[in-house]
């Protein structure tokens, strides 16, 4: 599936494993991506500022520095989307990466389909201005949110939300397709004082799902990223 953009999207891959690099080198170009490769954190940072890529794929286990350090340094000067390639069972590091400003992650081993979907979502989000400039009405399948009128519809029927439920939903809409960590949700919805009250999110998310999901146990819109946060599915 070719990307929506006409010119090639530039991708910087920071990864020390040669086989993973080879795998992406052969699979990405047919989809309209041009790949630059860096084998260490230092090299990656240098190339990031020299080539100014559209998106970065970053492995967390690098030989010379911590992947999270790379994110921190890049975020010091750029908001370009960063997708983390992580090994399994690294929830703690994942959360850290998100809090530092990573946009998304894929868990190794991953399929190319999954990676492409994540990259598309990240790029789409990056190309859109933040905050109030979002289109007034956002639609995700049977769910539509009218940000201007503060109304929520499921299959055309209006759903009444409490102020907190509404704020929770709109926060996820703002980052649609991206993972939003528990900390960030707590900060945006309840304020910085409640940043440690993880259960707030669970309780309100349950209420929200009961209102907008057909089967709350198998949600279609509000997806749980266990141990990390939530994501509003865009496709």
């Amino acid at each position, binding site marked *: 599936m070719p990307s929506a953009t006409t010119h090639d999207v530039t991708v910087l891959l920071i990864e020390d494993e040669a086989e993973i690099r080879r795998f992406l080198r052969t699979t990405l170009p047919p989809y309209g991506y041009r790949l630059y490769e860096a084998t260490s954190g230092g090299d990656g940072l240098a190339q990031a500022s020299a080539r100014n890529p559209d998106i970065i794929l970053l492995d967390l286990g690098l030989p010379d520095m911590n992947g999270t350090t790379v994110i921190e340094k890049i975020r010091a000067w750029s908001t370009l989307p960063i997708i983390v390639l992580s090994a399994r069972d690294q929830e703690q590091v994942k959360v850290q990466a998100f809090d530092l400003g990573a946009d998304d992650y894929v868990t190794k081993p991953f399929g190319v389909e999954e990676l492409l979907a994540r990259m598309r979502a990240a790029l789409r989000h990056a190309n859109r201005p933040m905050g109030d400039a979002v289109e007034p009405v956002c639609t995700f399948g049977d769910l539509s949110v009218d940000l201007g009128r503060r109304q929520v519809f499921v299959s055309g029927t209006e759903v009444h939300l*409490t102020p907190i439920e509404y704020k929770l939903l709109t926060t996820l809409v703002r980052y649609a397709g991206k993972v939003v960590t528990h900390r960030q949700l707590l900060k945006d919805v309840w304020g910085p004082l409640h940043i440690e009250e993880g259960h707030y999110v669970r309780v309100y998310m*349950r209420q929200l799902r009961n209102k907008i999901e057909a089967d709350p*146990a198998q949600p279609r819109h509000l997806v749980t990223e266990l141990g990390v946060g939530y994501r509003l599915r865009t496709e």
Partner: protein
Amino acid sequence: MEPQRPDPDALLRRVQAEEADQVRGKLKVFFGATAGVGKTYAMLQAAHEQRRDGIDVMIGWVETHGRAETEALVHGLPALTPREVVYGGSRLRDFDLDAALSRRPQLLLMDELAHTNAPGSRHPKRWQDVRELLQAGIHVYTTVNVQHIESLNDAVAQITGIRVSETVPDSILEQADDVELVDLPPDDLLQRLKDGKVYMPEQAQHALKHFFRKGNLIALREMALRRTAERVDQQMEVYRRDHAVVGTWPAAETILVCVNLKSRGPMLVRAARKMATGLHARWIAVYVQTSKHLRLTEHERSQGVDTLRLAERMGAETVTLTGDDVSAQLLAYARSRNVTKIIVGKPLRSRWKEWLFGSVVDDLVRGSGDIDIYVMTGEAGAGKPLVKGLLQRTSERRNYGYASAVVGACTALSVVMSPYFGQANLIMVYLFGVVVIATRWGRGPSALASLMSVAAFDFFFIPPYYSFAVSDVQYLLTFAVMLVVALLISRLAAHKSQQAEAALIREKRTAALYAMSRELITQRGVDKLASVASRHIHDVFHCQVAVFLPDRERRVHLHRGEALHFELDPKEAGISQWVFDHKESAGHGTNTLSGSDSLYLPLLGSHGAVGVLAVRSSRPAELLAPEQLHLLETFANQMALALERARLAEETQEAHVQMETERMRNAVLSSVSHDLRTPLATIVGASSALLTTTRPLSTESQQELVRSISDEAGRLDRLLKNLLDMTRLEAGAMQLRKEWHALEEVAGTALARVRSRLATHPVSASFPEHLPLLHVDGVLIEQVLINLLENAAKYSPPASPIDVTASVKDGVIVTEVLDRGPGIPPGEERRIFEKFYQLHPDREGGVGLGLTICRGIIEAHGGRIWVESRAGSGSRFRFTLPIEEKQPTVEPEANERDRAAT
């Protein structure tokens, strides 16, 4: 003619002794009559010879007394650096036992075996150091004079008039491998003395001059010679026995010495030893504890213990018997041990008292049968005058007051009765009073009451009244009879109540012991047993108790069980280890480190020491009384046996676990290698087919191959994940990152993850509203659900539904995963949770870890997991997770209007 065969028992003993000798060091004693005969010199010369033969000789301690010839010999030998001890402001130098043990020379020279060590040393006496050196396998040369031999101590004191306090037990000399007599005729010795060649400390010169008289020297020399000759005799006998030399065999004699009572006990013990050595007999020292024992002073009791200890040092076996009939106890015990001779002290009781109360010696002689009874010179102090004995205060002062009051009451009653009853009946009233007093308050008060009764009777009821004068002489007879009868009654009654008291105490102890045994049986595990036993010992003996238990390296450590307030003195840290290693008691009241205020007993099981028991009492004398000590040892024995039992059980368990682990490891290796290779084979095969360019494949086949590579890679990934999870669970490295989670949310992600593999199965997930939040590690619980769902998909027919539900029940959330498969065969419900267990190993593409991991995770969360086969078909896997009592609170929203509108 049948050849003479050696006595097998004796041979066995000798073989055992030889075996012990192989690890024990050899002891050579240079034995002399007095100081100055040249023992040290002879020892040093022998040492030089050994050194020339290449033996690693070292001087542990040698006194040269500044004599040039001796010093010249010392200089040629390496010496151990002495230890410096600061004591009372002065510096003392003494032998360093620990240095010797760590240096381990082959042969060590230890002058003056009878030497008393500096205060604070491990052992009070040098001979104990020597014993430890021998046990450590170090050969020792030592010197000793005849006057220092324990059993000859009395005899030497009688001859020379000088008693030396530094003595060496006879057993040391007897167990010595070699005794070399260093002899010098008295005249030569006196000459050397005159020449100033014998060292004498200034202050003792006068006494020593008295000691070194020719008569004394001859007597001491004779003793030394005789002692050495006795040893030669013994060696001769050993030889004859080994080689079955025809000759008369002395029947195996056993001598029993009764050391009851006081100051003459040691004399009896020494006499018994002398006789035992002469006869090469075994000997037993016995102390019979009677109910009278309760009335003895602490000093008197400790004399008894000391005597038994002395006997033990001289090589006797010691026994404490309990019972009131001394002679009967002695004879019964003697018969049970095949004793041939009994030694008792000569009684010093007056004849009439013996007639009245019986005599132990008479009873013994009468009941002895074929046992010989030897009566040795007496038990001093036993013959107290009768009246003094009766009036001796044996009871509290208060009790005498009660006794007087009772006599007063009797008098009052008699006054009322006197107009109507005769004098004989009044006497009965008084006698009744005496009986009451005797049973209630014992012998002293009742004896007082007897005297007072006679006096009161005379004063109030015998004319002339209100005077002690007697008009009719025949009343004197009445008084006399009344007094004797009253005294006899009081004695008998008091005796009976004492017996009852003693029985009560015995009963209490038996009960205490029983209570402990009973509790020990119900307990499992070394730690628990140690705690229980120390609590019981603490309760019974009212002392501080500590238990030391060994680790794998056989180092003992204080067992911190229940707080029994035992403050461990750091200076005593080594004692427990010593006691454990040597299997001997130490500390207060023993021969080793007696400076300590605690008593350390080894806990000996049937296969060696299992620990050390330490007790510390604020009244140590009470704790060390023989009967208490004996009881304590019984407790310690019980404890040791229980501990040993527990330790053996643990070891068996460990061995079992180890076997199981070994079996498991093999199973893992075969299973893992098979299960990892199968997908790899497919991947390698399919990818190589794709790479081959000689015969191009159709697009369809290519797709097929690529799909199988992808599927098998996925399978490999899941396998590895399971193996890794299992490894982390097993290593205990699975750390729970608990957070608040909603169960349906966790189930939702699990369903999303396995959706592709559940493709054909319709899955229904229904959860009641408002389930409490769970405080769990979400990722792990998700894993449990993933494993259960995958299992359900694997074992149920395609397109059959799978249900996930949950309910709240008794403080837990029960989650269920139901399938419509064949179910679990009866009897396998537990086994399927075991590691590497597979119902159909050939059919399944796993390693049999999925359910094991589930169980590990659920149990780590304090829950339970099990399976129920459903009637008809299908299995129902259930697991519980505890609901935290403190659910987190969520501030309600200020604006509830909107919600109400829904």
